[in-house]
Structures are given as structure tokens and as C-alpha cells.
């Protein structure tokens, strides 16, 4: 991949194939499907953050003619009381089930308790009043400090901390501890001339996808049941629902609707299994939707965190040691992204001595879900803030300081492998020469810079390409398209087949029409599904050669295929792809290509962001006045959508850094569960987001692709945090840098 390759379609800015439907309102999202005879489901949610359910009585609801079906935890045959009694319950599904419908205990405000189906949405919501619940209210645990205190109320009586040196003997709100190390941390700090040690915290934030969760389902006893929903992984929805309801995979068909944003938050199930229970009981199609308040209160936000970071360096800028203690809130059930947080925290640095310790802590908040590079923004925020402070202390430019210590090919990571060729140094160099960094810092403006690292994944993808008799075709893939990936698939196939991208129609098929595909996540789709598309197209090329050979009475080895044309190497004959397709009937039937792969070799993507911020000293309000996102894409298949990932990630990170946070009352009630009060960035809050694509090819992908979806959300937290610190002349240790907090810092300094 070292020399630049000439591409015909890769790297162009084509019009996305699903674009027409999306700008005209024709595209169908999660809430857009209605079926004949359909009824509506609604969910009764806990008014308390922490309580035992003393009594759950649905008899009044059952007696109502308006109520067509009721669902509770006992309707999960995989985990209910009967299954537990006879020992057939699936322990691994217990938390998932308890999160979807509470079992004897509610663990957060908004936790689902029961569901009802009725003829209209309004009737279903009204009928929720007919369910009688008696709660014994418990003290809520709302942050890490409270959760780990010796006197904390325990959320799960049987939860013992895993990963301790000595096995735990008492139940705890800490579900797990992990430790990673490299070199000799004590010696590393002993060799340092300057050490920075500081604690940081970040709030609970939400992915904030604009489309609430919704589903329409039909239970079918005599064939596959159908689930329509917006999801990043319909095969995973199928697997989870099958496990919860003791069904075989073949008994469920999941159709991925168009998806209105996910960012990791649509990788699990909430409504789908409940709707299927209601459909089974009522014999009717059932539709369910979350309100925006439900989305905030009861889908999975991202972990709040507390991090303690210690970094030491010599006066020449060599970092000698880095240490982190990281606590992540998991929400009501164990399983925060503490692991990836620990693994990524110091990966941008090639440092001999590292020590990282992580803790997964349960609290009375919704169970967290993935959010774009899960775990990394929190830990890398803390590390990058400390690195910037250290660079300043020893008087080095933050880019030069990073270049001196930058991770590169051969760097031994703390989590196992050595890095292959990566683009951090290239990103830093691009930052150094960028129009933004070379511009002087305006008066009253603070400038911050930070790096970010995310692994990216590969995994299983399955693709079929069918060619039509006229040479047009269909790309059947199974990766839900959240940000324009259909365009990339079309371009990659067109590149191999030598046809116009628009002649190939990409379809995201349901679980019955294409083999298993891993969830759209981990920045894997353009890399892994793209690789499957390339292999399926190459499969077709081999067949086209064979067909042409058959027509020319030569062997396939005597045929070359280039730019959509087969060439007889032993003569002058040529046949276009369309001509071969037109005569396919005579050479063995129609032509399909196929690839089922488990893609290895995902290339990590590094990024560097630069942020200029102005702070209103009277109000504490911050304004981003200039922002640049620089990231290694390996190879940008569709540059516009690559830039879009950089820009979107940057702005989500800006929101995280400046405004967004869950605000709780002392009783654990989320007080800002709407877009008015949970304020995500608006068009008027932002400047242009300059995007610079760096291309250091990933040799494991046929076109050099690295995933680009996630890394972009990591650097903004510290780039913004540092810019604010520079603007107000005081250290920042807590996000968000919201006006009240900044004003407090300014007042204290007066």
C-alpha cells in the first residue's frame, strides 16, 4: 500500500444512493411502520430511583376491556420465577431481562415495570393507571463516591467485586476491578523531573440520537415472527430476543428500518421483546415508541467517570511514567466500558512505564450503553489534560511534546499487541502546519489541543452481489447504514467491477436475506463490510472471466478483466460486464458473487483536534470560535462522509465538554430529561468545523481503509477543556465547562 494507487471511484464525492428517499421524507424509520389491525403498547415506569417492588397487581388492568395484553418480567420464560425454580434459567440474560422489565426491584427512575397493549397509543398510556404497584422506597446511590463508600446501600445483594487480589467476601457496588501494567511505574516516576497529578470527572451524557427507540412487531406461531426496529445490529436484536423468549433464531425475522442515529446507543434491546410478548398475547401486530423523556431516563447513556492521572517527564520532554485510576459508572447493572477506557487511556504515547487500574461501579441510573469509542473519551480526556499541563510546565509546545512521545509502529501497547503502522505522527504534523495552528491566538481566546486513539474492530460480515441481465446489480449487505455507508459499499464494488456506482443498488437486508453480520459499531462497517463487498465483487470478476472464456473457447487464465471489460489475452476480443451478463443464460445462468468473512486487521485511527474558545467573564458562557479536526482515515472512500464523521464526533465531544450532563435531584429523579434542558449543540452554537483527512493506509484492507466513526469524539473533551483553562487562566478538572461552573471558578479567582 506504500505507493499511491489510482482510483476511478474511491475518493470521489458521489451522491448517496439512499439520499433521494431521505430528503423527500420517503425513507422509513423506526416509528414509520404501521400494519393492519395494529395495536399500541405502552410501558409503566418507576417513579423512584431505588425501590423494592412489594406488590405488582395487574388484575384491574386485566379486567379492563380496553387492555388487550399485559407483560411483566414473569413473561420472560428464559429467566422468570418458574425457570429459576426448575434451574433452566439463562443467568447470562438476567441483567438484560431485569433492565427491560424490572424483577422485584427498580434500580433507576424510569425503569420499566410492566407493559400494556391497547387499541390506541392514548388508550394504552391511560390504561397504565390500572396497574397497582406498591414500592418500598430505598436510598438512591447517585455517584461513584457514594457507591463505593462503606455505608452505601447495596444495589445487588449478590454482586461481589471481581478482579481483586483476594476474592471479595461481601457484596459491593463495585462489580469489577482491572489492572494493566508495563515496565516499572515507581522507577519511571523516580526518573521524572516534573510530575503532574490531578483528578478529573465527567458527567453522565446521552448519545442524543434524534430518533427515539420504536418498534412494530408481529408474533407468528406458524413461521418467523417479525420485528421492525431501528438498530445498529438487527442480528443482535434477533439473538437477544430469541434468548429472552426461548425461541430459535429461525423463528424471528428482524428488519432493520432506517435508523435515526445510534452512536452506540442502539446496540441493545428495550422495547422489542416486550412488544413481541404483547403481540403473542393479543394476537395483533404491536407498535411501541419511547418518548424523548423515556429515551433519556431509560435507554443507555454513557458512563460518568472519575479519573486520577499522574504523568512524569524529564525536562527534555521525555515522558517517563503514566499512571491512571479510573472509575466508571455502569448504571443500574454492571458493565461500563471501563475495560476499553483502561486500554486506551495512554495509547497515544510510547512510554516505558505505565500503570492503569479501573473500576466498574453500579449506581441508580439507567444502565449505560455504548457511546462512540465507549470508555475512551472519559479516560483520554483526563490523560490529555494532564499531558497538556505537563507540556506547559516544562515549557514545550503541546505538539512537539506529543511528537517526542508519540506512539508509532512497534510501540508496545499496555493491552497486548504492538502497534502496526499508525498515523498519530502524521496527524500531529498535519496539525502543526494547519491553517488553524499556524494562526496566532486571538486576544481573549484560549487554545487547546488534544489527541485521541481508538482501536476499531473488524469482525463478521456477509455480502451477496447479484448482477442483472443488463449488467446492473444489487449489493445485499447486512450492516445498518447510519451515516452513508451504502455509498461506500457502492463505490468499492464499482471500483472492482469497473462499472458506474449508480448501477449497483445497495440494500441492507433483513436477517433472513443475508447471513449473519456483526453490529454496525466499532467503526467496522466501511472496513469489514467493505472488505466483504470487495471480496464478493472479486468473486464476480472470476466468474465474469470464466464466462467470457467460455464464449471465446479459451481458459479463464487467458482472460483479463479491467475497468469493466473482459479482454481475450490471446486475441482482440473484448466483452463488457453488461455483455457478459446479457449472455449469461447461455454460459451457465445468472451471476452472483458472495463473501462471508471474519475481517481481521482493523487499523486503529488516531486524531488530533485544535480548539479556540472565548469565555464571557461576566456570565461564564463559552463560545467555540474556531475548531479543527485532523484524523487518519487510512483511505477515505467517500471523503464527504469521512469529514462528516470527524465533524459529528467533534461536535458531540464539544457538547460533552461544554454543556451536556444528566442533572439529578437528591431523590435520583433526572431533572433535565428533554432537549430543552439537556442542551446538545445547536447550529448557532458552532463555527465551521474544519476537517483534515490524513491518509496512512491500513495494509490489511484492500483500499487501505481504517474505521473513522469513533475516534473523533475523544479529543474534543481535552481540546475544549484545555482551551477553557487557557481562556480563564485556571485548571479545568470537571466537565461540563457549563456557565455556572466556569463562573464559579472566575468568581473564586477574583
Amino acid at each position: 500500500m506504500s505507493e499511491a494507487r489510482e482510483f476511478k471511484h474511491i475518493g470521489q464525492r458521489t451522491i448517496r444512493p439512499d439520499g433521494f428517499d431521505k430528503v423527500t421524507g420517503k425513507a422509513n424509520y423506526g416509528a414509520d411502520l404501521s400494519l393492519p389491525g395494529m395495536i399500541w403498547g405502552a410501558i409503566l415506569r418507576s417513579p423512584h430511583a431505588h425501590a423494592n417492588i412489594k406488590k405488582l397487581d395487574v388484575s384491574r388492568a386485566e379486567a379492563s376491556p380496553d387492555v388487550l395484553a399485559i407483560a411483566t418480567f414473569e413473561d420472560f420464560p428464559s429467566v422468570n420465577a418458574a425457570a429459576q425454580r426448575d434451574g433452566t434459567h439463562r443467568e447470562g440474560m438476567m441483567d438484560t431481562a431485569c433492565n427491560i422489565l424490572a424483577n422485584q426491584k427498580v434500580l433507576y427512575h424510569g425503569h420499566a415495570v410492566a407493559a400494556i397493549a391497547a387499541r390506541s397509543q392514548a388508550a394504552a398510556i391511560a390504561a397504565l393507571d390500572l396497574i397497582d404497584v406498591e414500592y418500598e422506597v430505598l436510598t438512591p446511590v447517585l455517584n461513584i463516591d457514594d457507591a463505593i463508600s462503606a455505608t452505601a446501600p447495596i444495589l445487588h445483594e449478590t454482586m461481589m467485586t471481581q478482579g481483586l487480589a483476594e476474592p471479595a467476601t461481601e457484596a459491593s457496588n463495585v462489580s469489577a476491578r482491572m489492572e494493566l501494567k508495563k515496565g516499572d511505574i515507581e522507577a519511571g516516576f523516580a526518573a521524572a523531573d516534573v510530575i503532574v497529578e490531578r483528578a478529573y470527572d465527567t458527567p453522565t451524557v446521552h448519545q442524543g440520537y434524534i430518533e427515539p427507540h420504536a418498534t412494530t412487531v408481529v408474533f407468528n406461531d406458524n413461521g418467523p415472527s417479525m420485528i421492525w426496529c431501528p438498530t445498529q445490529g438487527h442480528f443482535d436484536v434477533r439473538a437477544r430476543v430469541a434468548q429472552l423468549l426461548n425461541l430459535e433464531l429461525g423463528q424471528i425475522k428482524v428488519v432493520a428500518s432506517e435508523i435515526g442515529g445510534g452512536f452506540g446507543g442502539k446496540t441493545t434491546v428495550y422495547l422489542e421483546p416486550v412488544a413481541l410478548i404483547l403481540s403473542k398475547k393479543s394476537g395483533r401486530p404491536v407498535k411501541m415508541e419511547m418518548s424523548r423523556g423515556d429515551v433519556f431516563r431509560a435507554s443507555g447513556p454513557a458512563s460518568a467517570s472519575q479519573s486520577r492521572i499522574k504523568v512524569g517527564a524529564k525536562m527534555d520532554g521525555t515522558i517517563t511514567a503514566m499512571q491512571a485510576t479510573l472509575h466508571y459508572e455502569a448504571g443500574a447493572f454492571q458493565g461500563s466500558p471501563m475495560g476499553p477506557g483502561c486500554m486506551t487511556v495512554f495509547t497515544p504515547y510510547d512510554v516505558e512505564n505505565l500503570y492503569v487500574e479501573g473500576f466498574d461501579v453500579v449506581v441508580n441510573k439507567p444502565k449505560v450503553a455504548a457511546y462512540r469509542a465507549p470508555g475512551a473519551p472519559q479516560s483520554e480526556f483526563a490523560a490529555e489534560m494532564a499531558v497538556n499541563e505537563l507540556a506547559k510546565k516544562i515549557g514545550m509546545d503541546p505538539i512537539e511534546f506529543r511528537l517526542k512521545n508519540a506512539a508509532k509502529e512497534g510501540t508496545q501497547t499496555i493491552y497486548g499487541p504492538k502497534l502496526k503502522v499508525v498515523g498519530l505522527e502524521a496527524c500531529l504534523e498535519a496539525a502543526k502546519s494547519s491553517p488553524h495552528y499556524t494562526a496566532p491566538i486571538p486576544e481573549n481566546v484560549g487554545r487547546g489541543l488534544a489527541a485521541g486513539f481508538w482501536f476499531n474492530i473488524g469482525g463478521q460480515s456477509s455480502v451477496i452481489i447479484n448482477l442483472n441481465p443488463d449488467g446492473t446489480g444489487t449489493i445485499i449487505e447486512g450492516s445498518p447504514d447510519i451515516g452513508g455507508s451504502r455509498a461506500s459499499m457502492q463505490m468499492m464494488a464499482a471500483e472492482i467491477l469497473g462499472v458506474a456506482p449508480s448501477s449497483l443498488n445497495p440494500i441492507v437486508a433483513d436477517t433472513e436475506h443475508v447471513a449473519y453480520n456483526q453490529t454496525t459499531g466499532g467503526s467496522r462497517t466501511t472496513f469489514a463490510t467493505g472488505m466483504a463487498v470487495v471480496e464478493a465483487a472479486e468473486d464476480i470478476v472470476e466468474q465474469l472471466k470464466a464466462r467470457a472464456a467460455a464464449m471465446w473457447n479459451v481458459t479463464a487464465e487467458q482472460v483479463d478483466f479491467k475497468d469493466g471489460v473482459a479482454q481475450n489475452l490471446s486475441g482482440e476480443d473484448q466483452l463488457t460486464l453488461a455483455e457478459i451478463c446479457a449472455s449469461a443464460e447461455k454460459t451457465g445462468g445468472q451471476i452472483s458473487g458472495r463473501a462471508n468473512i471474519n475481517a481481521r486487521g482493523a487499523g486503529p485511527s488516531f486524531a488530533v483536534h485544535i480548539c479556540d474558545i472565548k469565555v464571557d467573564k461576566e456570565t461564564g458562557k463559552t463560545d467555540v470560535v474556531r475548531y479543527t479536526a485532523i484524523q487518519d482515515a487510512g483511505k477515505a472512500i467517500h471523503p464527504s462522509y469521512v469529514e462528516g464523521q470527524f465533524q459529528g464526533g467533534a461536535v458531540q465531544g464539544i457538547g460533552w465538554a461544554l454543556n451536556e450532563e444528566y442533572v439529578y435531584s437528591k431523590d435520583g429523579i433526572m431533572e433535565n430529561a428533554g432537549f430543552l434542558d439537556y442542551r446538545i449543540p445547536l447550529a448557532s452554537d458552532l463555527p465551521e468545523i474544519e476537517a483534515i483527512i490524513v491518509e496512512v493506509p491500513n495494509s490489511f484492507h484492500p483500499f487501505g481503509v481504517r474505521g473513522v466513526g469513533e475516534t473523533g469524539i475523544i479529543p474534543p473533551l481535552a481540546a475544549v477543556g484545555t482551551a477553557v483553562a487557557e481562556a480563564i487562566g485556571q485548571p479545568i478538572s470537571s466537565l461540563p465547562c457549563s456557565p455556572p461552573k466556569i463562573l464559579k471558578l472566575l468568581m473564586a479567582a477574583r
Partner: protein
Amino acid sequence: MKSHISTTINGDSVEFLCEPSQTLLQVLRNDLGMTGTKEGCGSGDCGACSVIFDGELVCACLVLGVEAQGAAIETVEGVAAHDQLHVIQEKFLEHAALQCGICTPGLIVSTKALLEENPSPTEAEARYFLAGNLCRCTGYDKIIKAVMDAAATMRQGA
């Protein structure tokens, strides 16, 4: 008691029955099957359900169905003329101004309202006019570029 409402949507005469409590958004989506108008919040904070109501840009979730009596309503379904996209729609596609696309119908309608009111907005004016339309995917950069390009193209065509 349902009310019988006569209204005009995208130039078509439409009649429907609705409960006094139903919003225009619920009527459009659930009763008339016009799902191009999206629901993101139901409280007027996200702009995904933007429609033009008697010439005024509104959130359909903040208008009652019964208020549609005698009104003229434009939704995203009426922006393109058959298969001929409106310039705004073309520019959104050209500039890759959408990723997931759920906010796009609302943004297309709001942009149309903006450019009808102010054919030559500055970038700042465009950003403030569209501040009621939340987009979580794009960071707005490409949306604003599409809007400014659409404005310039429409001025040339006018």
C-alpha cells in the same frame, strides 16, 4: 368526540377526524400515513416535525389537529415536484449534509422557510434561523454549507 377537519396539505384537499387532544403531528403520521414528518421530542425542542402552516414555520407537535381546519399546510412530502428535487434537497445531497437523515425532513422544510423569508442569509443568520432544528450526526457544518449554496443557486435562478 372526534372533530371533522377539512384542510389543505401540499395543495391537496384533505379531510380527517381527530380527537381534540391529538397533535397535527400525530394526525399526519398516524392517521394520514404521512410519515415524512418525524418526531424527535414531541415538545417543540428538536424541529424534526417542522412544517409550514399558513406560511409560518411551526413544529407539528405543538399544533393541534383541529387547528388545521381551513389551513394550508406544507410538509416535506410537498417540497419536491414529483421526482424533481427542490434545489435545497439537491444541495443537501451534494454537500453530504445528512448522515442518518432523521432530522433532514425538518431541516429541508425549515431551510425552505428561511430562504422564502430571507433569500440572502449570512452564515450567522442561517445558523440562528436553523437553531431550532437539532442534528446530532453532522455537527451542522455541511448543513450550513448546503443551505448557503442553495441560497446562492436559488438567487441565480430567480
